[in-house]
């Protein structure tokens, strides 16, 4: 049976004393010698008001992530202008003078993957990305697109770019949603 590891986070507070910084220690729970020693130490201890520790322990099983801190705001906000220029260069290079054919479905899929990969390479942490591409034929048809989201406007954002040549148009939108 694999040993279980435990993460202990303790923040001692004592009356009349400055609080110590919290520390994180990782101990193996099945270390029986340490447990015996710990029991001996506590057996005769007299707890006073000055030395009451406040501890919280979390047991993490093997395979789970040891620590999952929440971060309500991003260190770096997703950069709209930079992403737009990246999208523009990717789309212009791929579509150029392309004509609309039935194979544009594969082109649309490939383009959405390229845009997503280019945005991923910018390495903005904790952002989930959705790349949406619509390629349509220019042929006297009216097309209207609108989108709306329920999200956190301070952290989440979107970037869009519309490409047009003589034969087709391409609407590319990249949504970046922050993971707290």
């Amino acid at each position, binding site marked *: 049976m694999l040993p279980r590891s435990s993460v202990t986070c303790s923040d001692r507070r004592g009356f009349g004393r400055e609080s110590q910084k919290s520390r994180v220690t990782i101990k193996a729970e099945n270390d029986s010698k340490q447990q015996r020693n710990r029991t001996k130490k506590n057996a005769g201890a007299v707890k006073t008001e000055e030395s009451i520790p406040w501890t919280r322990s979390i047991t993490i099983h093997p395979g789970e992530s040891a620590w999952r801190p929440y971060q309500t705001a991003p260190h770096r906000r997703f950069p709209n202008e930079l992403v737009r220029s990246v999208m523009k260069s990717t789309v212009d290079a791929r579509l150029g003078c392309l004509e609309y054919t039935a194979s544009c479905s594969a082109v649309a899929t490939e383009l959405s993957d390229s845009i997503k990969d280019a945005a991923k390479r910018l390495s903005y942490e904790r952002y989930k990305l959705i790349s*949406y*591409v*619509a*390629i349509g034929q220019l042929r006297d048809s*009216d*097309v*209207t697109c*609108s*989108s*709306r989201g329920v999200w956190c406007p301070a952290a989440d954002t979107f970037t869009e770019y519309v490409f047009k040549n003589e034969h087709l148009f391409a609407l590319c939108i990249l949504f970046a949603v922050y993971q707290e």
Partner: protein
Amino acid sequence: SVLDKLTESELFTVAVEGAIGGNAYQHSRVNQWTNNVVEQCLSQLSKLGKPFKYIVTCIIMQKNGAGLQTACSCFWDNTTDGSCTVRWENKSMYCIVSVFGLAI
């Protein structure tokens, strides 16, 4: 309610039908229609009360013989996040609604 028993795609089809069903394509109204479709879908999703962020995209295209292809690619957590795309049409227009749900 009845809505609880519908799947997501049925829910969005009902929302689209409620927003633009029975209408012929009109250039002057299509902006408002796309907004209505998106808002109806979002309100249905909000009623579910789940801890998700949602993004809804709606494209309405006039039926004139032109082609349209859409694709999406996502970088997210496969176990918690998902999407649904619904295609609706009548005699004069196509409507494609894509909904993305990302867990908080």
